[in-house]
C-alpha cells in the first residue's frame, strides 16, 4: 500500500513505530498533490518548503525523545477561510487576494500543538457562499470521481483533496451544509459539530450564529481523531462551550443498547429526491436494522418546507453585517480610483466581491432594512424557533435522525451557477442542523450508476457527536463504500481540463 492510501490512524501507527518519518509522509503527499492538482485543483496555496520544515521539526522532536502530539507528522488540508499566520488567507475572494493574517486561528494553534503538518490551503466558494466551489474567484475545483462535476461546497477543496488522497485529513467549515454536502459529493466522511464545540476564533465569519468548523476524512475513526484535536472551549470565542471534550477515538464502539433512528417522513417525500439517493439511503438504514436498530417515524414539516427560506434570510442578514468590515480601509482590496470615503468603500466592494457575495449582501441588507425587518428577518427567526422545537420533539423519541445528505449526487460544473434558487435547494437536508445548532455527520453509503458517491446524513442532539461517530463507525464495519478510491484522473478520457493560471496573489 502506498503512503497516500493510508488513513491518519495508520499513518500515526507507522510514525509511532518508526516505520515512516514525518518528512517521508509529507513528501509522499506533496508528490501526490503535484500529480493530482493539474486536474483536481483542490488547493489554492501549497508551500512545500514550509510543510517539509514542519515535518522536520516533528521528526527532530521525536528523535530527542519528547512526547509528540496526536497528529504527529500527519498532513492536514486547511480550508482557506481559516487564518494561518503569514500564509495567504484569501477566502477565495479578490477582496482578500493578498491578505496575510498576523495570527493563527485557534483551530490552527491546536493543530500545530498536535504536531500536524499544515499541507496547504484549500479552495472554497467565495467567503463560503455557495454549494459547488464554483463561486471561488480563482478557479473551480473538480470532483475526483468525475472531473466534469463539481465537488460540492463550500468546503469543496477540502473534500476533493481528501477524496483524491492529497491529504488524509482536512478542515472544513459548515454554515448550511458546507462540510456535509461536499463530503457526500466526494464520497468521504464529514462532521459538522455542535455549535460551540469548536472555536470559531480566526475563522473568517460568514453567518456567526450558524458557522462551525469541523473535520473531514476518509474514515469515521480519522474524523474522530481530528475532532478530538480541534474541539474545546476557547476564551477568545465567547460562543464556544466550556464542556470537556470526550476521547472520541477511544469510544467508537457502540454501547449495547439498541439505537433508535428517526426517519423524518417529509425528507423522503421531497419531489427533488433522486431515486438512487433514496434507494442507497434506505439500504443503509437496513444495515442498522440488521444490527438491532429500530426505525422511528418522525415528522419535521417546518424543517422540510421552510428551512431553506429561513436560512437565506438569517444567513444573508448576518453576512451583510459581517462583510461590512471589508471597506478597503484596514486590509483587503482598495480601489485605485480616487474618491471620497463612501465612494472609495462602495467602489472597493463592488470591484472585489463576486456576484454571489453581492447577491447575498443585497438580500441580507434588504431583510434588515427599515420597514422590512419584521416581515423578513424577525419572521425567519420565529420559524427558526418552530424548527428547533420540532427537532426537540423528534429527539424525545429517537437517538439519531437519518436521511440523505443531499437530494442528488454531484452535478456538472456550470449547471446551476446561474440559478441561485436551484443551488440553494441542494442544501435542503443539511441547513436545519445549522439553524438548530445540532451536530451532523455525512458518510459514504453508495454510488449512483454513473459512479458518483452518495452520502447518508445522521443528525444528533446537541453534543451527541459521540453517538454520531459510534453509529458511523458501526456502519463502516459492515460496508466498504469508504474504501473505494476515485479513478486516476490521468487515465480518464474525454476530459479536457481547463488549467487556469493561478491567481496573481498566490504566485
Amino acid at each position, binding site marked *: 500500500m502506498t503512503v497516500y492510501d493510508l488513513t491518519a490512524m495508520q499513518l500515526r501507527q507507522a510514525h509511532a513505530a518508526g516505520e515512516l518519518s514525518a518528512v517521508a509522509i509529507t513528501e509522499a503527499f506533496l508528490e501526490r498533490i503535484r500529480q493530482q492538482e493539474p486536474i483536481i485543483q483542490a488547493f489554492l496555496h501549497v508551500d512545500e518548503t514550509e510543510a517539509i520544515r514542519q515535518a522536520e521539526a516533528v521528526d527532530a522532536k521525536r528523535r530527542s525523545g519528547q512526547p509528540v502530539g496526536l497528529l504527529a507528522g500527519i498532513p492536514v488540508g486547511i480550508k482557506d477561510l481559516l487564518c494561518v499566520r503569514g500564509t495567504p488567507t484569501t477566502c477565495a475572494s479578490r477582496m482578500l487576494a493578498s*491578505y*496575510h493574517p*498576523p*495570527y493563527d486561528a485557534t483551530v490552527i494553534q491546536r493543530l500545530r500543538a498536535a504536531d500536524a503538518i499544515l499541507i496547504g490551503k484549500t479552495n472554497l466558494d467565495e467567503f463560503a457562499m455557495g454549494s459547488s466551489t464554483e463561486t471561488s474567484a480563482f478557479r473551480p475545483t473538480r470532483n475526483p470521481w468525475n472531473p466534469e462535476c463539481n465537488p460540492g461546497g463550500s468546503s469543496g477543496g477540502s473534500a476533493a483533496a481528501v477524496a483524491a488522497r492529497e491529504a488524509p485529513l482536512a478542515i472544513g467549515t459548515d454554515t448550511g451544509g458546507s462540510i456535509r454536502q461536499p463530503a457526500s459529493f466526494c464520497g468521504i466522511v464529514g462532521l459538522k459539530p455542535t*455549535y460551540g464545540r469548536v472555536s470559531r476564533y480566526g475563522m473568517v465569519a460568514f453567518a456567526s*450564529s*450558524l458557522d462551525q468548523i469541523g473535520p473531514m476524512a476518509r474514515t469515521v475513526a480519522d474524523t474522530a481523531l481530528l475532532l478530538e484535536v480541534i474541539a474545546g472551549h476557547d476564551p477568545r470565542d*465567547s460562543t464556544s*462551550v466550556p464542556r470537556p471534550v470526550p476521547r472520541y477515538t477511544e469510544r467508537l464502539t457502540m454501547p449495547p443498547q439498541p439505537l433508535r433512528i428517526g426517519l423524518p417522513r417529509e425528507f423522503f417525500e421531497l419531489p427533488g429526491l433522486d431515486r438512487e439517493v433514496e434507494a442507497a439511503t434506505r439500504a443503509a438504514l437496513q444495515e442498522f436494522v440488521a444490527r438491532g436498530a429500530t426505525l422511528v417515524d418522525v415528522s419535521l414539516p417546518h424543517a422540510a*418546507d*421552510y428551512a431553506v*427560506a*429561513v436560512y*437565506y*434570510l438569517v444567513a444573508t442578514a448576518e453576512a*451583510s453585517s459581517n462583510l461590512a468590515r471589508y*471597506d*478597503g*480601509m*484596514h*486590509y*483587503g*482590496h482598495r480601489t485605485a480610483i*480616487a*474618491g*471620497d*470615503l463612501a*465612494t*472609495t468603500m*462602495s*467602489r472597493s*466592494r*463592488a470591484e472585489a*466581491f463576486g456576484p454571489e457575495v*453581492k*447577491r447575498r*449582501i*443585497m*438580500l441580507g*441588507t*434588504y431583510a434588515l*432594512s427599515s420597514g422590512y425587518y419584521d*416581515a423578513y428577518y*424577525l*419572521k*425567519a*427567526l*420565529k*420559524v*427558526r*424557533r*418552530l424548527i*428547533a422545537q420540532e427537532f426537540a420533539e423528534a429527539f424525545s423519541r429517537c437517538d439519531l435522525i437519518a436521511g440523505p445528505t443531499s437530494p442528488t449526487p454531484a452535478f456538472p460544473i456550470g449547471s446551476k451557477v446561474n440559478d*441561485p*434558487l436551484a443551488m440553494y435547494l441542494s442544501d435542503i437536508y443539511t441547513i436545519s442542523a*445549522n*439553524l*438548530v*445548532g*445540532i451536530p451532523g455527520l455525512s458518510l459514504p453509503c453508495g454510488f449512483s450508476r454513473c459512479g458518483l458517491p452518495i452520502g447518508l446524513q445522521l443528525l444528533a442532539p446537541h453534543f451527541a457527536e459521540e453517538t454520531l461517530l459510534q453509529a458511523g463507525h458501526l456502519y463502516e464495519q459492515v460496508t466498504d463504500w469508504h474504501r473505494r478510491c476515485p479513478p486516476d484522473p490521468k487515465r480518464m478520457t474525454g476530459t479536457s481540463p481547463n488549467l487556469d493560471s493561478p491567481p496573481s496573489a498566490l504566485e
Partner: protein
Amino acid sequence: MSLSPDEVRKVARLARLDLSESELAGMAEQLNRILGFVDQLQAIDTTGIEPLAHPMPLDNVFRDDEPNDSLPVDAALHNAPARAGAYFAVPAVFESEG
C-alpha cells in the same frame, strides 16, 4: 413583495456596493425570484412564538480585565492598503469646507 429598480438602487447604497446599471437590473430580477421563494414564510402562523436568534442558550460571558499582549504596530499595518507612518491612510472622512 417585489423590489423596484429604485429600491434595489437604495439597498445597494445601504450596502455600500457601487453596482453598474446592468448589475442592478440582474440583481432586481434575481432578488425578486428569491423574495418570491422566501415569501412562503408569511403563511406560517407564528403568533406567540419567540424569535430564535442563536442556537445555544447563552448568557453573558465575562472574563477578568487583565492586560495582554496586542499586535505590534507593523503587524497590524502589514495588510493596510495605504499607511502613513504608524497610521492607516484613508480618504478624508469629512469634505473640506475650502
